[in-house]
């Protein structure tokens, strides 16, 4: 799209877009191409030897049950995080929307976790859920007889990183739900109330369906967040363990490439991850959007 009324100039538009193009080419396309090349090679870390091996790196990955496990882990982690943070965000937003008086105070008290770095959120939750002195784990052990041991139990470790990741994201979801609820015409709700629909019926029959675009948008955003921005949380809390049970795709790229110095495999993983994102984006636009009801 372009304006009808535009300026005419030969050099200026190029000059204006130049910084953007330079940064994009240098830090996006060039590395992406190099990464693509590297994924077809095996290289020693010091860069003295490299060999072209066609698709070997990819074949190895796709035949490696651990890589496939890591895909599963990533999906579970992303959906888990999205589910927890979206549902909590939705409940709190629904409550805040009812509580007209303190709405803005509530908002202030709820939005700040957005500003906490994922890695710091990881530190806080590590302290809360630490198997030997974390207050929440003591509480769970004592009152729910849970044998909480994220050091050994992959499920517990997963729960731990989901909690740390979801906590931070609640405020993000909250902001969107509140905005979405504000946009729902009052008359609609009032009409339903006159027809005798109770608050719960109204919420599930009217509010929620009308929020579905927001819900869908948040689903995508939360999954993307869980995919990429939670590296710090995993790095701080579990480092992919125990037994590889929290080794997500992004963490594995780091582990294999930077710690293990296996550059070829790490590059191939990056390429596969890129395809996965493109896939998600396509699904997001093509398939899911049709089912969502739009407010217009």
């Amino acid at each position, binding site marked *: 799209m372009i304006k009808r009324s535009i300026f005419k100039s030969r050099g200026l538009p190029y000059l204006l877009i130049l910084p953007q193009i330079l940064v994009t080419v240098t830090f996006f396309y060039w590395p992406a191409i190099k990464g693509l090349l590297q994924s077809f090679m095996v290289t020693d870390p*010091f860069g003295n030897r490299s060999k072209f091996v066609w698709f070997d790196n990819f074949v190895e990955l796709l035949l490696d049950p651990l890589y496939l496990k890591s895909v599963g882990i990533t999906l579970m982690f992303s959906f888990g995080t999205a589910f927890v943070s979206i549902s909590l965000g939705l409940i709190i937003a629904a409550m805040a929307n009812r509580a007209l008086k303190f709405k803005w105070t509530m908002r202030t008290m709820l939005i700040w976790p957005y500003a906490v770095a994922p890695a710091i959120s990881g530190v806080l939750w590590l302290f809360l859920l630490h198997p030997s002195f974390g207050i929440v784990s003591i509480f769970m052990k004592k009152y729910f007889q849970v044998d909480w041991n994220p050091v050994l139990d992959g499920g517990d470790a997963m729960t731990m990183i989901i909690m740390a990741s979801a906590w931070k994201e609640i405020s993000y979801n909250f902001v969107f739900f509140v905005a979405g609820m504000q946009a729902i015409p009052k008359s609609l709700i009032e009409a339903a109330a006159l027809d005798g629909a109770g608050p719960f019926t109204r919420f599930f029959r009217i509010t929620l369906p009308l929020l579905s675009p927001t819900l869908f948008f948040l689903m995508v955003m939360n999954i993307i967040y869980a995919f990429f921005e939670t590296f710090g949380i995993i790095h701080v809390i579990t480092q992919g363990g125990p037994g590889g049970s929290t080794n997500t795709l992004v963490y594995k790229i780091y582990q294999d490439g930077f710690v293990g110095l296996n550059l070829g495999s790490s590059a191939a993983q990056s390429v596969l991850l890129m395809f996965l994102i493109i896939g998600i984006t396509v699904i997001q636009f093509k398939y899911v959007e049709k089912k969502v009801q739009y407010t217009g």
Partner: protein
Amino acid sequence: MKKLLIAVALLAFIVMPAASSAKPVKIYWWHAMRSARGEVANTMIKAFNDSQSEYEVVGAFKGNYDETINAGVAAFRARKQPHILQAFEVGTQTMMLSGAIYPVFKLMKDAKIDVNWDDYLQPVLSYYMNKDGKLLSMPFNSSTPVMYYNKDLFKKAGVKPLSKTKAITWDELGVITGKLVKSGAKGGMVTAWQSWTQVENYSAIHNIPFATKSNGYEGLDCNLTINNKMVVNHISRLMNWSKNKRFVYGGQKYQGPKAEFLAQNVGVYIDSISGIAKLKKAVKDFSWDVAPLPVEASMKVPQNSIIGGASLWVLKGHKKKEYKGVAKFLKFLSNNEMQIYWHKETGYFPITINAYKQLKKDGYYKKNPLQEVGIKQLMRQKPTKISRGLRLGYFIQIRNIINEELELVWNGKKTPQAAMDTAVARSNKELRKFERTYN
């Protein structure tokens, strides 16, 4: 001719004072020594710089071991490498084959510095030698695992203090940990660095190959052999112990087995000797001691344990004059005064026999008998081809694999045999990848 001589003399006259008043040649050293150890390293650097004026060593902390290697790799590719890079023992193979290094034996020879290599602790040197017995990197911080135990808990359980020289058997440890649990301790034993202590060192002490081709020293086409009967039995034993809390898995990083020992939740704790200095600081409310690692009853003459830690690699691409300084600095680090200081402050080994003898003569081990347990365990036998060390590509990944598979045993998802079989299969894949990169 005469003119020329005068000219040369004049030139020499002009150059000489200039050279002596010139700034010292800078030598960069990137290391991974955090906090207290970093301070000790800095003190050693300062001692060298003060001892002469020709060279100035500049040390820089570059993060943990992985980060330090990474920084070195990136710097080498940018041709901005330091002269000396500290790399952990698992990175030995990668460094050795990097084509980026200046082997230490050659450095010393070229710099015409005489080093009596026989005076060094052989089990330490042998970890960093090539297959012809030539030293490639200078050992720096070397340690070996030992067994710490809580004397108070032992007393309560009715167990006598252990010998500092003669290792107890694993069966005996089984009885001891059983008594500990019975006497009300939350657990028997924990171990740090499980792959290093329970698989790598267990294999060395019992002279079982960890991998074919002399543990990888004699070829990249080696395979792991840790799914052998003895190692599997050992893991099964620990697994059985874990059922009645005689063995407790303490996790790898933040959780940490040490915390369990400090909280007196367990009575026995296996970790590196470099933990001594830290335990001294951290333990306030109980008394503890050190004993050698347990051995199997069938092993009448246990082998030496193997080392962990890191060594100093000299990187290519600098000036001859600078290398002379590097050689001098490395030599300086291994003199008695430095080694004794290093040993006392950090618990790591003194790397020369001379320094060790000096410490003995000074009566240091009379006062600190527990500092000597590790060195005695390390020196108790001449290293065999199997107990001298491990030389594996992608060893970092292999350790991760072993850790992962062991964790699957501890949480009951796999049998020890299945876990070790998978560990071998997965590691061999890594070894093949590595082999292909370098062939």
